[in-house]
Every structure is written in C-alpha cells, then in structure tokens.
C-alpha cells in the first residue's frame, strides 16, 4: 500500500454550518509513456460542506424527522472530463449510497420539520489503472469510503446530533502477480490490474454497526467455487478493519477541531 496518511481537517468553509477537507496522496511511479499536459492525478481531494439543520420550506409536508439531502459533485478537472451542472449517474449513485450510510448515524427525531444538506465536492479523483477498463467500479468504492469519512467529519463539525461517527473502509480481492488472489485493504485503484471483488462499508465502531455495504464484482471472481459466501464475509470484515483505521484519523481530527473551538470561545 503506497499511500501516505490521509489529511483530514475541519472548518475550511466558514460559510457553512460544518465543513471538512480530506486529502490522500498516492505515490505514482513516474509515467513517461504518456506525457499529458499535466501530471496524472496523484490522489484524492474531497471537500464537504454541511448546511443546516435549517427549517424546511413552508410548502414542504410535515416531517417528524430531520431530512437528509446528500449531493456529490465532481469538478470539471477532477477526472479529466467535463460534466454538466445536472448530476450525472455517477454523482447520483454516490449520493444515494452516502445518504444510506449517514442516515444510520443521525439522531433525526431531534430535528422535526428541518432539513440538512451535505454537499461533497470532488476536487481531484483517483484514476484507475489505464490498462484496465473495469477498474471504474473500484474507483467509486474507494471514493465512497472517503466521502463517508469526510461527511462524518463535517457533520460532527456542524454539531449535529449523532449516535456515532461513521467511517468508510474498502477491501478488495485482487489477482496478485503470482496468480493467487489476495485480500487488500484500502486498495489504490491504479495499482491493481484486475480487481475481482471489492466492497465498501460504513462502520460505527462504538456500536459495532454497519450502516452501508456496497459490493461489486467484475467478471469471473478469482478462485470462484463454493467458498463464495465466506469470501464475501471476509471481504466485509476486511472493509471493517479498513474503516477502523480511518476512524483513528477522524478522531484525531475531531479532537483538534473541538480544542480549537474551545480555545476560540
């Protein structure tokens, strides 16, 4: 795993109720074959802004719970191709999974007739290995896991009541160089030629609960036989381990953030 410690900071968007920024740098071997106008994206940069809880418009029907609305937006320069202002299928998909993950953490009944907007902006997305066309699925999973972590940090920064903080973790079963399949935690999409199965979870460690599971499989899974069921469970377990590691980073960040707020007041 050739990635450095993720950088997670809160409070970067003072105009929002809560905000967070996550950056993961990846070390890439220098690629001299394709020059390109710029170096290939070397990591993942996400920012999240939380607006709310704020009152629903008068026309909205009564809701006894907090209405969570998630949006994911890619910048035109995140992955090299431009998108229009209407959310495309990738953005909607990620937003839906993120909503599932976060809904399980919010104490929604404390905020009737209110809504909260969680907006994630992907400033730089990781590219999959250019030689493998099927890595698009793994890209989304690693992206979702980072979205979950950064959204939890922003929600905590906004001071919205939650049962726990959710963190995302990814595990994948890839075909190694030796031909044997192995379980990798937090895979870097560009490192692996073929990803057999991958899974992302949103995990609440204090309650040992999983609020979201999203698993994908590309083509023939390596070593497919009757052991598929235990394969899937070990995949989920691996993802939970990865989420626990992310939680350490998140807790450090939140401690810093609370200390800074107390110092200010």
């Amino acid at each position: 795993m050739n990635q450095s410690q993720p950088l997670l900071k809160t409070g970067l968007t003072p105009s929002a109720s809560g905000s967070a920024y996550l950056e993961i740098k990846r070390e890439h071997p220098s690629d001299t074959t394709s020059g390109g106008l710029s170096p290939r994206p070397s990591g993942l940069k996400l920012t999240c802004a939380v607006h709310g809880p704020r009152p629903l418009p008068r026309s909205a029907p009564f809701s006894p719970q907090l209405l969570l609305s998630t949006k994911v937006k890619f910048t035109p320069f995140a992955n090299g191709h431009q998108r229009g202002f209407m959310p495309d299928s990738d953005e909607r998909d990620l937003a839906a999974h993120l909503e599932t993950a976060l809904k399980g953490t919010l104490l929604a009944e404390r905020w009737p007739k209110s809504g909260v907007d969680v907006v994630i902006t992907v400033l730089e997305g990781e590219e999959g290995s250019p030689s493998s066309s099927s890595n698009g699925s793994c890209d989304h999973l690693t992206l979702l896991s980072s979205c979950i972590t950064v959204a939890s940090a922003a929600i905590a920064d906004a001071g919205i009541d939650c049962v726990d903080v959710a963190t995302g973790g990814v595990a994948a079963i890839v075909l190694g160089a030796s031909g044997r399949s192995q379980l990798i935690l937090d895979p870097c999409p560009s490192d692996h030629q073929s990803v057999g199965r991958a899974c992302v979870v949103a995990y609440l460690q204090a309650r040992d609960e999983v609020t979201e599971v999203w698993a994908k499989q590309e083509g023939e899974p390596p070593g497919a036989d009757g052991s598929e069921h235990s394969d899937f469970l070990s995949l989920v377990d691996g993802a939970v381990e990865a989420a626990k590691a992310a939680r350490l980073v998140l807790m450090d960040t939140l401690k810093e953030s609370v200390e800074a707020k107390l110092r200010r007041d």
Partner: protein
Amino acid sequence: MAELGLLVPNVELNTGCAPEYLPGGPPGQVAQGLVQRVVSALGGWGEVELGRLMVYGRASKPDRASSDEEEGMSDEDEDMDIDGRGGGVPLDPTAPPVVRQPESAGVGERGGEGEGEVKGFYTLNLHVYVLSLDHGANGLFDAVWMAVVAALATTRLPEVWVGDDGESVNVDWERPRRKVLRERGWPVASSFGAFRMGRDGLGGAKKGEKEGKGGEGERSMILADPDAFEEGLCEEVITLLVREEEGQVRMLGMEKQGGGVVGLEEMRDLVKSAGERCKTVNKVLEKECRD
C-alpha cells in the same frame, strides 16, 4: 482574440459554498455576471496574446488542439487555496483532433515562436470553482480574478504542430513548454464599499476594522474588501483593477455602482490602496507560481 473565443472562463458557484448555492441547478445571474466581468477584464488586459496560443504546421487543413486549465479556489479570507495546474486533458496524438474552422484564421507566416503556417490555436478553458463564499459579488470577483491570474501564470503549454498529412497533431515533449503570461506585473482587483452612517439609526456604528478610512467627516466611511454583510449595507461599491508598471500604478478597469460618497479625492486614495494590495498579491503570486 475575442472573435475566436480562445479564452473560455467558467465560474461555478453551485457548489455548496453558501446555503443558497447548492448543486443541481444551472448557473444563476451572479455566476453569469462574474463570467462576463472576467471576460471583459481579460480582454482589457490583453496580456494573453494570440501569438502564444498558435499551433503551426505544414499541412493545408486547419485544425485546433484544445487544452483545459483549471483552478479551484475558496473565498479570500486569508485562506487562498489555489489548486492551479497547467492543462488537464492529456494531448493524445492518436485522438482525432477537434476541428473548428476559425472565421478569421490567422493563417500566414508569423515570426517568433513557430515555423510554417498557423494551422490552429490552443483554447484555454478556465474553470473557477468556488469552495467557500461569504462575500458579495464584488469581493468574489476579486478572488475569482486572482485565481484566474494565478492559473494563467502557471499554465505551460507543450509545443504542438500539425503533421504533414493535415490530420495528426504531434507533441514535442523535448522542447520547453510555452508560458502564457509574463513573469511579473500581474493585475489585481480590489473592492471597496462606502458606508454612510447617521441614517435610520445606524449612526455611531463602529466599522472599518480592516483598512477603513474616514470619508467626509464622520458621516461616511470607506471599507476595503467588504464581505457580504458589509456590502449589503454599503450604498456604493467600487472595484478597481490595477497593475504596477515601473513603480506606477496603472488602472486597467474600474466598476462603480451607486454614488454620493466617493469623489475624485477619495478615488485617489482608493487607487493608492489598490496599488498597495497589488504589490502584496504579486509578491504572493510570484512566490507560489514559480516553476
């Protein structure tokens, strides 16, 4: 330059930067207005010349290579987050080129950077993405302009030429890349707001913690770099686009809305203040935008 439309700015405000700007909708009036101001400021500045964007070749068919440059930015409250990289779309020599017939094609021999005929031009797409906003439209323009200048200053275009067959676009990675801007003397925008006190119970308000200046006696005050709240209370807003040339402050543009407080005397002070800001910002840009 204007006819060919080679500089294409785009300002994206629907990013969740403020509660009223959530993603999912088309650009609103503020965003479109900002784009128009950037376009006219770039045109008035004239620094990005046609010559720097030319693509030469020997073939007979004109075509065009296009490149993206991007910029992410946040509000300028001491927290500039420049995410400027030159270029974004890798130029693949095997990809079919985007063909567009320029109306007044600059075809012909031009001295300087290339040999042969001019076969096309680079198009620069400038994307400004607002991450955090608590300023009004004028303060936002200051930050957007700074981001645009920083992005152009760090842009490096590879040398490309059109092959003999007229179809292929070739890249020469050995040659040093082309810069789009000069080294120094970049223009900087500064906004000011004039606040009139003593009306409707607003008298005696203590304002101007930043660089507030006294206007006419105690009845009005000029605020530098007002935020959204302050701008909403100001009856007059002025934006100055200045650059420094051999120690002199030169005005490239001025926009003024409202009136009644700022006259010629005050304007001199404002230009001086804008010149100071220009010096400060240029120092920062030079440091950060070095190769």
